[in-house]
């Protein structure tokens, strides 16, 4: 929050008509044990979304235990002394809803969408697993197997193997927290012990390291009372100090070519380090990313898929989250499959040319206005679903210390000027700031099966 006061004091009128305003209600309260509770009431449907976000992710997992934060996320569903394995999921289904969890560099989230009759039961279950888990060798082994299958299906047996988020970090960052494979090596996953599980739960899964968020058919008063009832008695726990994983922008470009035993079409990922969270450059960078990669009207789509006709598609990524949801070194990455009669040099040169135009002359004014209009609409769209809204608010509260950021992001977007976009294009997306991986199809070996993993993890 250090930097945004300047921008807030200079608000520009919103791009869209007043009819398109949508000030969603947000109420925040902190329990005595440090648990932050966020509520956004909405009675338009008799359902609720619940999100519990813990302020720990891949960056803080133990050394020698790559993939542990994600394995741990799976173990959160494997039972407690009071609610043994299977109960959490069966109760969720019986409530008429679904649940999920995901692990990101800076946080891990647990979400449930249920008809409102199930709200209290789901809160009990979340509180129950915040207290303790059933530290059980059988469920550990079971989920080690399941996670390995997840990695096989998404990485080792899949063309491109997630190189646009796994390998690109390995190339672009120098600190272990930022550059290790968050899915983990099979060796590290197999080494995970019940002691590791106990320590991680104790250190990072206490109420003072978490945000509970509820959106939907509930009043704030009832939501806060339920949070107090089920979570209020959980003692706060000491959280280890966070390591310093900050990294400066790249001064020289990095480049790697990888063979891919499964892919049939070459692909390229180019990543540039984002501004720090809370920097005055963050909103302009978000707008620039959308200008470059947001849909068929975007600059890179028009320049590379159309225009030069060298790419098959253009996709923009912000690590594994969004331009607003990170709290440490993160890449803006452009992923593109390209035509076999082109090459990575041509694709990179084309990207550089399109970026340089913006860095030199600024964006086209009409294009900037269109992009901002769509970003506003997309931001609201992302808050329509109750579980998505609860989760977004919990993430923002966790990373920014303020769920109210959700109401200010539309204003920050509206305030971005052409000069802002020009400035961040020159500063963050200059060629020397770039890490790029060229993924080349490798002819399949005729007889002996090559280790497909060699394609995914060179």
């Amino acid at each position, binding site marked *: 929050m250090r930097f945004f006061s300047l921008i807030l004091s200079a608000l520009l009128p919103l791009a869209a008509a007043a009819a398109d305003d949508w000030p969603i209600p947000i109420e925040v309260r902190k329990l005595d044990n440090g648990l932050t509770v966020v509520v956004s009431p909405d009675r338009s449907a008799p359902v609720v979304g619940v999100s519990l976000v813990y302020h720990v992710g891949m960056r803080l997992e133990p050394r020698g235990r790559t993939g542990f934060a994600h394995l741990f996320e799976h173990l959160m569903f494997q039972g407690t002394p009071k609610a043994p394995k299977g109960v959490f999921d069966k109760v969720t289904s019986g*409530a008429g809803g679904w649940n999920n969890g995901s692990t990101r560099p800076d946080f891990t989230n647990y979400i449930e969408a249920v008809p409102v009759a199930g709200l209290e039961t789901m809160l009990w279950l979340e509180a129950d697993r915040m207290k303790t888990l059933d530290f059980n060798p059988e469920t550990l082994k079971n989920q080690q197997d399941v996670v*390995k299958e997840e990695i096989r299906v998404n990485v080792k047996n899949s063309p491109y193997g997630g190189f646009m988020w796994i390998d690109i970090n390995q190339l672009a960052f120098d600190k272990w927290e930022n550059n290790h494979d968050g899915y983990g090596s099979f060796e590290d996953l197999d080494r995970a012990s019940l002691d590791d599980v106990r320590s991680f739960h104790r250190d990072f899964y206490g109420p003072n390291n978490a945000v509970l968020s509820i959106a939907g058919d509930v009043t704030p008063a009832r939501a806060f009372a339920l949070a107090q009832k089920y979570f209020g008695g959980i003692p706060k726990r000491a959280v280890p100090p966070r390591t310093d994983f900050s990294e400066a922008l790249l001064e020289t470009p990095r480049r790697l070519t990888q063979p891919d035993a499964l892919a049939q079409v070459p692909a390229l990922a180019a990543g540039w380090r984002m501004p720090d969270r809370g920097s005055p450059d963050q909103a302009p960078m978000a707008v620039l990313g959308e200008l470059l990669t947001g849909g068929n009207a975007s600059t890179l789509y028009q320049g590379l898929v159309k225009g030069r006709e060298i790419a098959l598609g253009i996709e923009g990524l912000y690590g594994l989250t969004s331009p607003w949801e990170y709290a440490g070194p993160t890449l803006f990455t452009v992923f593109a499959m390209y035509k076999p009669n082109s090459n990575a040099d041509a694709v990179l040169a084309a990207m550089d040319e399109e970026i340089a135009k913006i860095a030199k002359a600024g964006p086209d004014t009409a*294009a900037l206005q269109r992009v901002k209009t769509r970003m506003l609409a997309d931001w609201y769209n992302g808050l329509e679903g109750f579980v998505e809204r609860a989760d977004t608010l919990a993430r923002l509260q966790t990373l920014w210390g303020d769920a109210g950021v959700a109401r200010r992001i539309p204003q920050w977007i509206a305030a971005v000027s052409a000069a802002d976009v020009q400035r961040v294009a020159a500063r963050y997306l200059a060629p020397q700031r770039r890490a790029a991986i060229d993924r080349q199809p490798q002819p399949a070996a005729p007889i002996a099966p090559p280790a497909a993993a060699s394609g995914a993890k060179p």
Partner: protein
Amino acid sequence: MKRPLTSSALCAAVAVLALATGPARAAPASDMPPFGADKPLPPLKVVRQTLPNGLQLWVLPRNGPPRVDALLVLRGAGNAADAADRPGQAGLLAEMLSEGTQQRDARALAEAVQALGGNLGAAAAADGMLLSANALASKAEALLKLLAEVARQPSFPEKEVALVRENALQSLKAAQATPGFRADGALQRAIFGDHPYGRTQPTEASINATTAEGLRAEHARRFRPDRALLIVAGRVTPAQVQGWVRAAFGDWKAQGDALPEPPAPAASATPQRLLLERPGSVQATVRLGRPGAPARTPDYVALRLASTVLGGGFTSRINLNLREEKGYTYGASAGARSFRQGGSIVGGADVRNEVTGAALQEFVAEYRRIGSELVPADELTLNKRYLAGTTLLGIQQQAGLVGTLARNWLIGLPPGFLGEFVPRLQRVGAEQVRAMGAKYFAPETQSIVVVGDKAAVAEQLKAFGDFVTPTK
């Protein structure tokens, strides 16, 4: 010239979608609170109207986010209308719609949509084509104009057709590198044979045969108001929308006769055993399938419940067995897909090579059990509540509601079906579920497709029949 509308707007409430399916308890822990009382969904207001040209219009005024959704459903314009030598043509036609109109080139069109804070795209389904669009609420009129322009006046520019063709060939290559795409293609053919429902994936030949002239002809043949439904939802009034739609779609005329409905696909198919080679694959992609049932059948609701118990959602038998007990896979599923004239039964999982046979054995055992044993009462209640609740969750958001209504219409369910679904679900008994299991999931009737490393998995497959490896 604007034409008057024929019918007066009739207000068709899609009834109350009550959740209640009886009490559910799943709490072994003494202090876990029980579920509260189920709350009914407020009745959905749908204002329905038919234009003189036959276009049906449903308007759903809502006070949610500042967003309007418009979904134009073209029945008969989907994959079922693709010729035998042009599989996947509906998908290419859908893609080409946004590549230019008589007023705008592709870029101007993309920019116009962006300026509305919106999206506009088309997708092909078995029974039709869906053109979905959304924008900020204040841009509703402009959005409907753009939607009409794309639906009625696509220009199929030669240059864009050539580029789409070229890129589609590369995309096909990329898709064929994934085991799921190959497995699904082989399974569709095993299930539907020569029936057009099996023609969902393009081939190199069908892509190469795509021309601007051919696309224009297909567009004229497939897009007609008397086979179309437009659903509009959001911060709008029915009167506003009716006026805008009259202006944008009122003079749309059908050309020639409507396409005939596709025939019903065969109700059964000879079970096949296919092993598609993927050297070096570290998993086997396993799929089972057979013909299923159309949506308009007395079996529909009971079949959906049986599918849920067996293979729908995280707590299905298949997933709990293969993932949570055995650790064979990241996720396993099975269930029915219903279309207008027929359907399919599809199950599968991606498993590490060494457990391919063991995983298939579990599929066979669970398929047999659902058709031979009664589902216990607790498990049946849990699954009814899951199916009812997730239906409710699926329509919380505007696009989900619009999409659900559109898909139901496309596959031939009555407009009130959404409101009838849960009460009908409540009446399904364990005997009916078992009957559905026996009728549709008998393991002997399933084709099995495996994509994987032959050297690693062929031996394990012998217990399930003689697997054939197609030569391309």
